[in-house]
């Protein structure tokens, strides 16, 4: 086999077959995938089916704390578990750019296998396409996930009440700043790592304590600010965030200050925001802190009013307040 991905690897012929059998199936195989039929036939327990899909595009494809493969598994799993789903199966589609090193591809498939095993999901169907050099950015991945929502779990913003607490599961902005720091042109030396991680264990622990959690979201692109604004909008409420309670690593804060970025708008990959009834918030928090993925969790604010004019505002460290807006477009680093 050549040491690079060639157009022939996407031709549908023998090269494709070899790539799939020798690399993908060998690494990710399970009884369903091994059949290599046009569509996977699946067994699922009864209950409400949840399904989500996401495409992953990230430069560089391997970064401190993770890679695009891990991201593609955990990202989709996290979307499923945010509504209380128990995930079962994933699909996996690659778009590869001609000329990428086979070693890089192998590394990413290995990482996908490890991530899927960690979560306990099977990759049951997939696709591989190759585009000409220059027509793609090394590797794109799409994953679709399905699972079942257990009875009694019903998360929705309409259930949010005044007084409910807002919990953030850990330090904000680690992923976005890590990616930025290793991008071309910046290449800053930091000890930062992406927080890329699955949240299924954390969510299970939270729901064990309080099955009536109102809503959960993972603050990926657009960051904590965007998710809180979405929740406020959908629930018709005003949310107050106390800045001094928001966990953030000093390196992330420092890089944000340097580049003129707001950490509230920076992406996360292994964090969640939950709106939890006030009476059980402390107990939920303790359950979260007992797990490594929730060790820095904190109650960062609360729902203060039902309103026709939903908004999120921050009480600053010095006791004043300011609006927390959704991100408009991309955050662009400033001049001075």
């Amino acid at each position, binding site marked *: 086999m050549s040491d690079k991905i060639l157009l022939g690897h996407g031709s549908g012929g023998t090269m494709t077959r070899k790539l799939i059998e020798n690399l993908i199936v060998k690494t990710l195989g399970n009884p369903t995938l091994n059949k290599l039929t046009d569509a996977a036939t699946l067994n699922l327990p009864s209950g409400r089916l949840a399904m989500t899909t996401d495409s992953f595009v990230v430069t560089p494809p391997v970064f401190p704390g993770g890679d695009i493969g891990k991201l593609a598994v955990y990202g989709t799993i996290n979307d499923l578990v945010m509504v209380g789903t128990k995930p079962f199966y994933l699909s996996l589609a690659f778009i590869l750019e001609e000329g990428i090193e086979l070693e890089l591809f192998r590394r990413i498939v290995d990482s996908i296998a490890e991530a899927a095993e960690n979560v306990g999901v099977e990759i049951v169907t997939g696709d591989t396409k190759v585009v000409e050099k220059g027509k793609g950015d090394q590797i794109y991945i799409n994953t679709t996930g399905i699972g079942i929502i257990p009875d009694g779990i019903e998360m929705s913003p309409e259930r949010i009440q005044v007084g409910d607490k807002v919990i953030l599961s850990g330090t904000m902005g680690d992923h976005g700043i890590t990616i930025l720091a290793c991008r071309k042109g*910046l290449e800053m030396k930091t000890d930062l790592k992406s927080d890329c991680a699955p949240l299924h264990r954390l969510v299970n622990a939270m729901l064990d304590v309080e099955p009536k959690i109102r809503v959960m979201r993972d603050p990926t692109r657009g960051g904590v600010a965007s998710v809180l604004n979405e929740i406020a909008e959908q629930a018709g409420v005003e949310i107050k965030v106390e800045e001094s309670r928001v966990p953030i690593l000093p390196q992330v804060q420092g890089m944000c200050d340097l580049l003129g970025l707001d950490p509230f708008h920076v992406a996360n990959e292994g964090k969640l925001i939950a709106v939890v009834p006030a009476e059980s918030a402390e107990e939920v928090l303790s359950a979260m802190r007992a797990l490594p993925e929730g060790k820095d969790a904190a109650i960062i604010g609360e729902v203060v009013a039902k309103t026709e004019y939903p908004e999120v505002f921050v009480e600053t*460290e*010095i006791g004043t307040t300011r609006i927390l807006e959704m991100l408009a477009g991309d955050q662009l680093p400033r001049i001075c």
Partner: protein
Amino acid sequence: MKNRYRDPLLIQKVTQKIHQVTESLDRTVRLMEVCGTHTHSIFHFGIRDLLPEKVELISGPGCPVCVTPMEFIDQAILLSRQPDVIITTFGDLMRVPGKRGSLLQAKAEGADVEILYSPLDSLKLARENPEKLVVFLGVGFETTIPLSALAIQQAEVEGIRNFKILNAHKIVPPALRALTTQDIRLDGFILPGHVSAIIGLKPYHFLAEEFGMPGVVAGFEPLEILLGILKILEQLSEGRAEIENVYRRVVCSEGNRRAVEMINKYFVLTESEWRGLGMIPDSGLMLKDEWKDFDLLTQENLDAVKAVQEEMEQLSEYSSQNMDGPCICGLILTGRKIPLDCPSFDKVCTPESPLGACMVSAEGTCAAYYRYRGRGGRFHVR
């Protein structure tokens, strides 16, 4: 670790003093924060909420993107559309609208525009792409100019000839002179921290000596900004006018000699146009004759430059003022109006589709008003 510059108790103490000193003043005072980062911090920390009604904060022309004339953006966009040209720029210039779109739109249409964090990265691109012309958009004040100088020095050492600067660098003190002599009522300046770290205090002395205008160099933490405001108010209350420095942890009176030497080695003062302030003598920098090789617009034999100059002539029939349309950026940059006075603010002009530069940069006055509207910025009504 606790940040003592955000300690609520200290903030409270300084705020109380500000209120006390303000009581001794018999009029409303208008203080201008010159620097965009100050504007941003003032909104971010809701500092206006802490001030007495009689103290108004006016946002000045301290965002390099905001004061760059539209003509420069037009030139950059036209250049980006030339074959074999790579435009390199800091990010916040990308969304600024020119007469025919922004650099972001040009990039979407296929232009080769790279966002970078230092002019030295531009040099790297020039090294890696010897067949292309790599143009660095030289926008920025004293803080960024030494870096441009460093890039030229490095290009000279390595003999890199396909690296050029489209230069619009500006220096701050002449703009303060222009503001002080125009019909804008101001009572004092919160002077820019970063710029002062380079130039020190001396270039501001004329404010106090010639115009009796107090000025205080302040840092960007809330306590530092409030201390800056307090010091100006104390001067006004005592009838003094001096240039003070409450940002000693970063700024020393002499500034950074090496950085200033770098600027002086490569650049010489020239007249420059500021959006909103017009043409200001000795407020811009152009490359000295011996470094002209790196000044893009003097390379008249380059096809890309010829093409851009021809197209600019066609565009020049519209004045930038006309193109600003209902946008009142100019008046906002000089403190004559606030964003809420603008008929376009939050209607047709938003960060997603900005009409003027002030809505583009995170440090622009309109962007700050937009982002923190309602809270953290008790909008003063005059």
